[in-house]
């Protein structure tokens, strides 16, 4: 297991992501942040707090559970089974710029599922994907609009992000 980002390195990356997101936002449009469960949710809250501070207004934050939209539900997965959890988006997604947040962008399938889920909730003005870490290996034609760090890993390795809220400390490692 190799740690590629520790807590001290993650914070400036989040600040950088926030700055880049704000740069692209038109002044008169509403923005909202939606995180993909489960670690995307934590990242979304952190980004949301920074965005709110930078824009000087409260940016709504929501959580999306993509289990029902996964494309591997009907194929055998051995012993693991994703659990359906709640989607909590307490605001209207119509006509907003949605910053979709996830921890790692790899195959792109989670982002695809998240977009399908979002479309069932309404019609956003735009959806922009922000991730903390991206790595090569896309299986779908999906790219991040804002990527914090570009990781390299062999195909059989996995890039894992831990956050202090649910794993005890902030770090990104490869195993």
């Amino acid at each position: 297991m190799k740690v590629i980002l520790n807590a001290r390195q993650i914070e400036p990356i989040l600040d950088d992501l926030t700055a880049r997101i704000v740069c692209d936002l038109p002044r008169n449009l509403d923005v909202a942040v939606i995180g993909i469960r489960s670690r995307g949710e934590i990242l979304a809250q952190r980004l949301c707090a920074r965005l709110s501070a930078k824009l000087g207004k409260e940016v709504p934050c929501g959580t999306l559970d993509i289990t029902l939209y996964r494309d591997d539900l009907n194929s055998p997965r051995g012993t693991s089974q994703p659990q359906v959890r709640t989607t909590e988006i307490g605001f209207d997604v119509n006509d907003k710029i949605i910053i979709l947040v996830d921890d790692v962008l790899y195959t792109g399938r989670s982002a695809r599922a998240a977009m399908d889920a979002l479309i069932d909730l309404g019609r956003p003005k735009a959806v922009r994907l922000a991730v903390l870490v991206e790595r090569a290996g896309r299986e779908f034609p999906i790219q991040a609009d804002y990527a914090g760090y570009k990781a390299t890993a062999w195909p059989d390795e996995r890039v894992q992000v831990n956050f202090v809220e649910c794993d005890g400390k902030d770090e990104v490692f490869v195993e």
Partner: protein
Amino acid sequence: MKQFPGRPRGQGPVSSAGQRQNAVVLPGETRGDAKVGDLSHGRPADHHKVAGRPVVRDEQEGASVSAGRDAKMASEKKAKQFTWQRKHLLGLRELSAEEINYVLDTAEGFEEISTRSVKKAPPLRGKVVVNLFFEDSTRTRNSFTLAASRLSADVIEFTQKSSSVSKGETLLDTARNLEAMGVDIVVLRHGAAGAAKFLSRNIKACVVNAGDGFCEHPTQGLLDVYTIRKIKGSLEGLKIAIVGDISHSRVARSDMWAMTKLGAEVTFVGPPTLIPAQVSRLPVKVSYNLDEVIDKVDVINMLRIQFERLGGNPFPSTREYSHYFGLTVDRMKRARPGILVMHPGPINRGIEMESEVADGKNSVILDQVKNGLAVRMAVLFLVNQAAAVGE
């Protein structure tokens, strides 16, 4: 062309797990030595005791639900690996507390679908669900139909009267014929106890029991405990009374299994003619006097007097029954202020309970119906998952 970083000496092993890795790591993902299906799970109350962490959330959310969810996220790391492996839901007697809680947790995730503008999600897309109902039902059948539709499944409705069963076709032949047309899930309601189990052993599709004779009605039991859990947080230590025609009630049996497994204390209440003689072998208390029980319980579930099933004369008159066992406004005055009043429906107003009680502030009867939809979506999703993975 995809570029993978080159390796100095030959290719290392590329496992299928690595290739199909999701970008998001979901807590359910296996990590090699994870244990599956551990049944010695801790008490469900633990889920809701851990303090939550600050989270930006939707204001409409109830406090107990948000506290429970925070605790769940925090304890997920400690929770052992669990998978739902049952292809059929035949009854609650054989389910463990962990399995029941898993269904309830899954149902929570499905509630949100019914609040959207597009009330659909795709997990059962392309799957066919048949409602094989040999007994009348509006509530349960419509609930299953709607649940299947919300999951994007195709639904076939089968009513006995308009089918070949009236020409003498057997249950098994009926089911096999439907299966030949490509049915994935059969929801069965039948007058004979064990019908669902029989079907599950003879057809390849998943079977969900929607009521078999007097035996079990598992989705009703699940939605009842879901309703209680949602409001009270946990069933641990709760005192629950089930009142009415116990001997002919599959709802009473399913409720009993679910509630006792989740740690509640259940009391059957009714006239001796309607409580089975073997009740001492069941994990419940018995009372023949509602007035003794009414001030001691946190939840009271009134069962319908099923006039169509009563043989003989179990009580002298319905008026006498409702005098002794009906939930009247007067009796409610002596009940605990936070008592939940439940009824599986349809209500015989004036017999099991007075209208004012049915429509009163303690009544959660309509919540039961609403929760029934989420619970049935969870059940259909889970049995389909078990079948898909098992192939």
